[in-house]
């Protein structure tokens, strides 16, 4: 992939949508309204909640696994706010519920050397995140959307939620979080997408 050459001028005749832009909208994004597009690279897996579990391992003092019931017994935590997909849609005022990653990490206790995390889904999908971006109330595993079970096409029964980054980081069907000392590219990151993916800095592709 290459960078565009220089700063291009205006595109002839392009006006674009009306510019009463919502301040919640990061650059290059549009408001998807009530839509919630589905974009995944693999077949949708059917995962029975009884067979689902979440494991936190790698650079941790206490590798830990929670079953569906055990995870639900942890303190409930909610996110109410916006989400942003790299394909340029954003969705305002979403409401998710599950458990804060802080709760899981508190139990698993990352080692002093842990700096990154690789999230792995049941499908084999992976995505990498800096540890500092999933701690401090910024990330969850969630099983509820709008007060109802998270639909399978949106990652149900349980997905990762890291709403301040582009949504490919919020791995659907998540089952494992592996703490790492060094960053490794996940699935889309190996395929040209950015390692961090901050929508406010338009970090869509490697090199942004």
């Amino acid at each position, binding site marked *: 992939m290459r960078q565009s050459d220089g700063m291009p001028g205006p595109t002839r005749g392009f006006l674009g949508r009306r510019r009463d832009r919502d301040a919640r909208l990061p650059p290059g994004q549009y408001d998807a309204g009530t839509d919630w597009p589905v974009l995944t690279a693999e077949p949708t897996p059917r995962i029975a909640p009884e067979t689902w579990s979440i494991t936190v391992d790698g650079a941790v003092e206490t590798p830990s696994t929670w079953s569906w019931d055990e995870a639900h017994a942890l303190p409930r935590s909610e996110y109410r706010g916006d989400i942003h997909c790299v394909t340029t849609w954003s969705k305002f005022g979403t409401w998710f519920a599950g458990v804060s990653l802080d709760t899981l990490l508190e139990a698993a206790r990352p080692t002093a050397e842990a700096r990154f995390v690789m999230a792995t889904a049941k499908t084999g999908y992976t995505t990498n995140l800096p540890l500092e971006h999933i701690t401090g109330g910024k990330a969850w595993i969630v099983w509820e959307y709008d007060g109802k079970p998270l639909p399978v096409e949106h990652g149900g029964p349980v997905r990762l939620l890291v709403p301040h980054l582009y949504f490919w980081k919020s791995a659907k069907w998540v089952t494992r979080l592996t703490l790492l000392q060094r960053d490794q590219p996940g699935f889309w990151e190996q395929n*040209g997408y950015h390692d961090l993916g901050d929508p406010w800095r338009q970090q869509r592709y490697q090199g942004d």
Partner: protein
Amino acid sequence: MATVAGVRRPIQRSVELRLDVHDRVDHLPGQHYVVRLTAEDGYTAQRSYSVASAPGDPLVELFVERLDDGEVSTYLADVVEPGDELEVRGPIGGWFVWDGASPALLVAGGSGVVPFVSMLRHARTTGREDLLRIAVSARTLAALPYADELAAAGALIALTGEQHGIRPAGRLAAHELIPLEEPGQTAYVCGSASFAEAATQLLESAGLPPSAIRVERFGPSGAAA
């Protein structure tokens, strides 16, 4: 940047753009480009479009379906003329690509055929059309992009809204896909979210392991992630 070399509208509500991409890096069949439009006041909008041309084509061909409320697609379909300059970025994507050397089963709905047209054209130039099995679905033949090219390649064409040859109108069925399966195939599915969901279930019911199925779903927002 790219210079628009050709604009064609072979089917309704869509446009084929032939682009002369400056400092181009050859794509792999299945990859896409991002087109970014900039207004006078600096406002930008960008969307992803699959490449229909083969890597060896001196121009990059993008197929754009015109969505009525599509900020970028309406501009590309209604306004763009040969000679215009467009900001493009690509090629992008390393997952939904065909290596040109291994057997592949391609299943598309509607404009989901576009990445497969690139694969087919590439196979024709390398003489490896034998590696590809193609099944496509659309409402009518007139609504199927690249219909003649796909038919000439022997693609199974399933039309939901009209009879096609001896095939009655109806959705693609598992028994139609089974004869297209070959050992060691990777299946590629491209289409709307609902088509992709139905097609992957068909392939799984026809015996393909999920790990051998790659999916590109697109919605009103483009086709990237």
